[in-house]
């Protein structure tokens, strides 16, 4: 069945899509112009990173990577939440 080779190639294409998405989000992160814009982009970057790890886990057939995805998700959430708290306190 051709599905085996299609499978790996499709995963590569999806990885590429996510990599391009990350670049777009990085662009917004750099452009800003406001701190909230950057916080939103940071949050999005952490989700994209989780997505990439999941795809890589399937690609390499390595379930250990899911642990890393969890760590990134936790750090992403904490980062975003603290950034939001910081913005609110800082501006008042």
């Amino acid at each position, binding site marked *: *069945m051709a*599905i085996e080779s*299609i*499978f790996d190639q*499709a*995963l590569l*294409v*999806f990885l590429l*899509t*996510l990599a*391009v*998405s*990350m670049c*777009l*989000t990085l*662009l*917004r992160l750099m452009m800003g112009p*406001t*701190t*909230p*814009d950057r*916080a*939103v*982009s940071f*949050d*999005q970057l952490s*989700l*994209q990173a*989780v*997505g990439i790890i*999941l*795809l890589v*886990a*399937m690609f390499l*057939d390595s*379930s250990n990577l*899911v*642990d890393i*995805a*969890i760590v990134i*998700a*936790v750090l992403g*959430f904490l980062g*975003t*939440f603290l*950034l*939001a*708290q910081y*913005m*609110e306190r800082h*501006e*008042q």
Partner: protein
Amino acid sequence: MPENTVVLWEWALLLSAGLGSLFMFLAAWGNLRVPNVLARMHSAGMGSTLGIFLLLLSAGMYFFILDSEPDTLILLGVLSFFILVTSPVATSAMARASLRISDSRERAHLILDEFSSRETQEMADAYNQTTLEYVDRQNSDSAKWRVYGPDIIPMWVADMDFKTPKPILDSLLARVEHGVFGYGGRSEELANSFCDHLSKTYHWEVSPEDLIFMPGLVSGLNVVSAAVGTPGTSVMTLEPVYPPFFSAPLKQDRQLQSIPLELSERDGHLFYEVDMQRCIHGADASTRLFLLCNPHNPVGRSYTENELMSMAEFCLERDMILCSDEIHCELLLDDRQHYPVAALSPEIAQNAITLMAPSKTFNIPGLGCSVAIVQNPQLRSAIQAVSSGMIPHVNVLGYAAGVSAYGDPECRAWVHTLGQYLTDNRDFLLAALKRDFPEARATRPEATYLAWIDFSSYVVGSPFSFFLEQAGVALSQGSNYCTQGGESFVRLNMGTSREILAQALERMQKAVSASQS
């Protein structure tokens, strides 16, 4: 598991992963493309969440069904649950934070603002309710309406036919009530509120000492031309441009180096941009000053950060002073953003003179109040030395109007409403031109209420004289804005009510069809 079922699962998995990646991509694209932070949050939040769950689903299928690793499934379940709980929490925390720190103008876009105090609610209402009031100025002291007589619709000199916002009127009335009009001193109140305005609007930190108040922009151009360089040195400018950009240097015995803007067509409209190569070739050792008009009168460009950066760097390299006339900077169409060139870097600020004024924005040019922002102390004293004794101080009413213009939040709301009205006027004008003068070539102004139109396909000779004599519409003659050429162009001032604009265009259309039959 039978082979067929495995293949089916693999396809399902790929479909889910593909859709997930697609949504992640759309979310990133949306975050980049949509205009403000709350909208970006929507795109980034919704799209990414859907995307990540589809990816989790595909990972679940992979590890559980194809790989038979139930332990991984538990981890994936934990991850899904975690994202399910934290994603909305993070998004609402960010939304609340960005709403709290946003200013009232951004909040005015909201339909429901649960975090607003009474004041911000009133501000939002003010934004939605501010209206422009058209005033009939026939038989008034207006130069625009006086020069060509009663039957002519005037669309030349750049002021508008709208009443100035109420807070400015109130402070003028209060100042008149005061009854004494003795010598006025420099208004520190205006200096402070203007600096606040620069900091809030452009994140540009200017100290009140950097401001020199002047009674008008044209005096400003003359003073700057006299203060920079010596007689015989050259001044560079970009044409077509407001005529005093030519006359001010010449009056101060400077040589004029006028560089044509590069003209192209973009989406069926004329588009002017700066050709740096021409500037580099046009400059020589005698060039001491670069006079920039941004937004550019009459071509309506609001220059981008990149364009401004290359001009500013060119000036720094050549050791030329950059003087930027930004008097139209608040007349922005399509919610565009203005970049003061001096705010780009501290180095540029030390090399720049910026001219601004409340006059165009709030329709008070008759009050004679404008300001030069000069952060370089040596330049500042050179300008003060030239103007002392030659240039009068700003009059007390001009100061009074300026203080409300920059200090009163209602005036911000007015600017917002004005921008929308002018944007609609521009679109109305372009639609009418497309319908009645399909061969005419016009700019699509990004800022200002000035359109720059080439009527050579309809009028032989000067369209200015033709429309004045045959249509009773007074436009500005294009050749005045150019050192050579420009005869087939006119500048049209659309800072008036849409009825008047429609009437003028109708008269112009009738005159052209009468001349063609």
